[in-house]
């Protein structure tokens, strides 16, 4: 049995002073000493690029890694809607406290209050920083920044750059990073994938990577290692995540002793384009803003095969407006998603595969005119038409929920350090801040908060204690052993010589995880998944076919290792969901719902973070609990009626 005790290291005192006091209490490294420290940053999305650039500006030696061909390609680039900042520029009553409150409540009281408060505090600095870098946020005619309301918030605190906010924020961070590369303070390694996290005497001392162009396996040593490697939504196979997003970096860290928290907290976004057939490789998100003017409905009758325009008003069920009269079509993501699942499961779905619901702009077009509607949503309509060949100005859009974001991830303390000393997790890769459900426009905020404003301080505090110590030589046996593990794995995959592609197994695994651990979960299904996933995994390990060799480009080899980690993770998601005998946020246990079908939390027994410890392949992980304390926001039942 392990001896891990989870210490969140949350500072004491009034919540609004905790971060400032903590910053004051942390040890500093003087400028001349900073350059004696090497920090490895893995990932160049918002969190990684921001951290690498900032640490380099401070004077640390940074080595930065991404498997992409350029830092600018990280998945953050795809975020559309916007980023929150508690600026109260609209004078509509927003404040740091309100953003804090909304985030704790939106997370269904499963996040750490102190972290959320800090996130809200630094949100204002993020906006300043991004503007200084030249992020072209939308403006009003007077030249001030424009804001919109997003994801059901009652204030306008979302900053945006057309429908390309993630792109513009990432380009800002990427440019700052490239400047540091030019100055020689960051050594950038693109096309370089982390495959092992290396420890010596219980402390993280570096990583082993494979160059995906040449196949070269190499060790890197550093005083601290930061993982900013994104989320694991692709465990479902079909998701809105980029094709190459994966859990491998986090998972290899987990295998080295970093606890993995709240794996079952996944977010299913209500407005995506439904799959068209089983060759589909990924799903496309349609911005949530469409719900401002679109009405969601399905036919009242089962198996109603009439085209939408032949179904009269009285035969339509505007189910969100019916169930949630006050929020209607703007009900939060988890609620809107589950409601869609209910009607599709009943057999009232629409489209050729009956796997969607209508999002209808007919009424808005009558009320506002074609031009206004097109002006608001034209670019989204074009994108939709490119994919489906249907024009939403003429026929209602079809949408269905899809995996979009993962709240779970590596457990970190207040300093963003995992349970492995010297190993940090930033951005979507960690579990902090969003609890069981993330609010719209808050992931970009968290990635940049971690990267620009939190890790650069907290990492310094750790490094200060290492003054005078060098890095561990990459010739050390710990590195050689990790390299061996990587090489052995490559050879094992290449020698199986089965009959099916890696992709095939990812798709099959994804179906299991989606069916049993998707929008609604129950004990039977989860137990079934826990027996079916290992069985599929066994077949995968015997029958997968990976061609070619380990040298040079081998995309199947890259994929197969990632899929193996998704197998482990898929199991953990189910185990975590089975353990959590309550419903909260994105985790809906069918057995735990109110009379009218809403999520029923159990604060008495489940007000904790569930963090799992790896015990070796084939053995179930051990659960550790970090109790959650709510001193400022009193847990209540969320209601959007």
């Amino acid at each position, binding site marked *: 049995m392990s001896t891990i005790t989870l210490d969140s290291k949350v500072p004491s005192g009034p919540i609004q002073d905790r971060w400032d006091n903590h910053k004051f209490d942390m040890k500093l490294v003087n400028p001349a000493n900073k350059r004696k420290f090497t920090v490895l940053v893995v990932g160049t999305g918002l969190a990684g690029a921001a951290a690498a*650039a900032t640490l380099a500006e401070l004077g640390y030696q940074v080595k930065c890694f991404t498997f992409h061909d350029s830092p*600018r*390609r990280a998945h953050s680039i*795809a975020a559309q809607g916007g980023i929150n900042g508690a600026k109260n520029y609209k004078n509509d009553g927003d404040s740091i406290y309100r953003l804090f409150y909304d985030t704790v409540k939106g997370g269904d009281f499963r996040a750490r209050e102190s972290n959320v408060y800090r996130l809200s505090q630094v949100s204002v600095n993020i906006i300043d920083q991004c503007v200084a870098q030249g992020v072209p946020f939308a403006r009003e005619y007077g030249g001030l920044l424009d804001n919109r309301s997003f994801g059901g918030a009652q204030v306008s605190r979302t900053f945006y750059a057309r429908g*390309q906010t993630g792109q513009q924020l990432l380009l800002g961070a990427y440019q700052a990073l490239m400047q540091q590369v030019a100055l020689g303070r960051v050594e950038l390694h693109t096309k370089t994938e982390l495959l092992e996290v290396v420890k010596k005497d219980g402390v993280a001392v570096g990583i082993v990577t494979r160059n995906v162009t040449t196949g070269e396996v190499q060790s890197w040593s550093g005083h601290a290692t930061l993982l900013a490697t994104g989320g694991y939504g692709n465990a479902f196979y079909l998701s809105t995540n980029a094709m190459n997003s994966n859990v491998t970096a986090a998972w290899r860290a987990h295998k080295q002793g970093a606890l993995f928290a709240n794996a079952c907290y996944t977010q299913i976004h209500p407005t995506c384009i439904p799959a068209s057939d089983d060759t589909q490789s990924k799903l496309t998100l349609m911005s949530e803003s469409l719900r401002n003017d679109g009405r969601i409905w399905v036919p009242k009758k089962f198996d109603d095969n009439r085209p939408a325009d032949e179904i009269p008003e009285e035969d339509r069920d505007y189910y969100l407006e019916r169930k949630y009269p006050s929020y209607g079509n703007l009900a939060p993501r988890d609620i809107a998603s589950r409601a869609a699942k209910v009607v599709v499961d009943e057999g009232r779905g629409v489209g050729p595969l009956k796997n969607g619901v209508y999002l209808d702009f007919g009424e808005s077009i009558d009320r506002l005119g074609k031009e206004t509607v097109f002006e608001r949503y034209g670019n989204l309509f074009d994108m939709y038409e490119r994919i*489906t060949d249907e024009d939403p100005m003429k026929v209602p859009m079809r949408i269905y929920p899809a995996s979009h974001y993962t709240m779970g991830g590596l457990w970190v303390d207040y300093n963003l350090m995992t349970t492995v000393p010297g190993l940090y997790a930033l951005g979507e890769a960690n579990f902090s801040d969003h609890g069981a459900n993330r609010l719209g426009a808050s992931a970009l905020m968290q990635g940049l908060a971690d990267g620009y404003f939190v890790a650069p301080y907290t990492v310094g505090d750790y490094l200060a204690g290492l003054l005078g110590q060098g890095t561990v030589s990459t010739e050390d046996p710990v590195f050689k052993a990790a390299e061996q593990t990587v090489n052995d794995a490559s050879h094992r995959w290449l020698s199986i010589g089965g009959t099916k592609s890696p992709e095939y197994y990812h798709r099959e695994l994804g179906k299991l995880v989606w069916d049993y651990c998707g929008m609604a979960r129950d004990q039977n299904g989860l137990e079934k998944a826990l027996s079916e996933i290992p069985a599929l995994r066994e077949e995968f390990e015997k029958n997968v076919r990976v061609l070619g060799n380990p040298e040079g*480009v081998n995309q199947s080899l890259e994929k197969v290792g990632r899929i193996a980690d998704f197998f482990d993770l898929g199991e953990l998601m189910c185990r975590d969901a089975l353990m959590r005998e309550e419903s909260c946020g994105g985790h809906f246990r069918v057995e735990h719902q109110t009379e009218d079908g809403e999520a029923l939390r159990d604060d008495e027994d489940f007000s904790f973070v569930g963090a799992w410890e790896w015990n070796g392949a084939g053995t179930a992980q051990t659960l550790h609990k970090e109790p959650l304390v709510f001193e400022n926001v009193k847990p209540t039942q969320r209601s959007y009626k």
Partner: protein
Amino acid sequence: MKLTLKVWRQDNVNDPGRFETYEATDVKDEMSFLEMLDAVNENLIESGHEPIVFDSDCREGICGTCGLMINGQAHGPQKGTTTCQLHMRKFHDGETVTIEPFRAAAFPVIKDLMVDRSAFDAIVQSGGFITADTGGARDANEILIPKPAADASMDAAGCIGCGACVAACPNGAGQLFTSAKLAHLGLLPQGQAERWKRTEDMVETMEMFFGSCTNYGECQEACPKEIPIDFIAMMNRDYLKSKLKNRKLSGQKY
């Protein structure tokens, strides 16, 4: 539908490369071009042949990772559309489709349809940023930016760095990409302090890697984000001025 694919296969940068022919069967209208290739690859793997290497990631037209020459056109026949967003309904049964990498002197082929576009990063590294170290920024609303300026900057900032402009250009020039970055930063008040140095450095770095622009205009036609060549004219004007300005800024008399 059924298609015949003529696909460029090349083992590495030194291999001369060749076209191979494959049949794509069961192609459906709703498939994207890359999903069609995924299906071909799965069949190749299951029949013991190495799959075709090509790059993609977001498959939403925003990351700039994908990019193929399809029947001689960068990103294929649909205007304003990346390869990943192109759908098979734009093709017809029985058609032969030729698929090649984005060829250019500055983009060496890594394998098959995958090319090395790191020359773009080198251009950005030489000056494509506004110096603003973390922490020192003033309140965001203290900088007023007229909406038209913010909008024009955003038009340029929409470049996804895919390289179609280079692949489409008979000279393999990098002007559209470089000018888009310069315009994004140069149209904003925050970008003024470094404007002239940035222009000179980026243009000269670009010239180290890429061919020269002779105004064919193919780049604008191929660009999936429809970045206009007007930005190239802006860049050229700024470059001429930058020579003078930079000398003046460094205290030289002229």
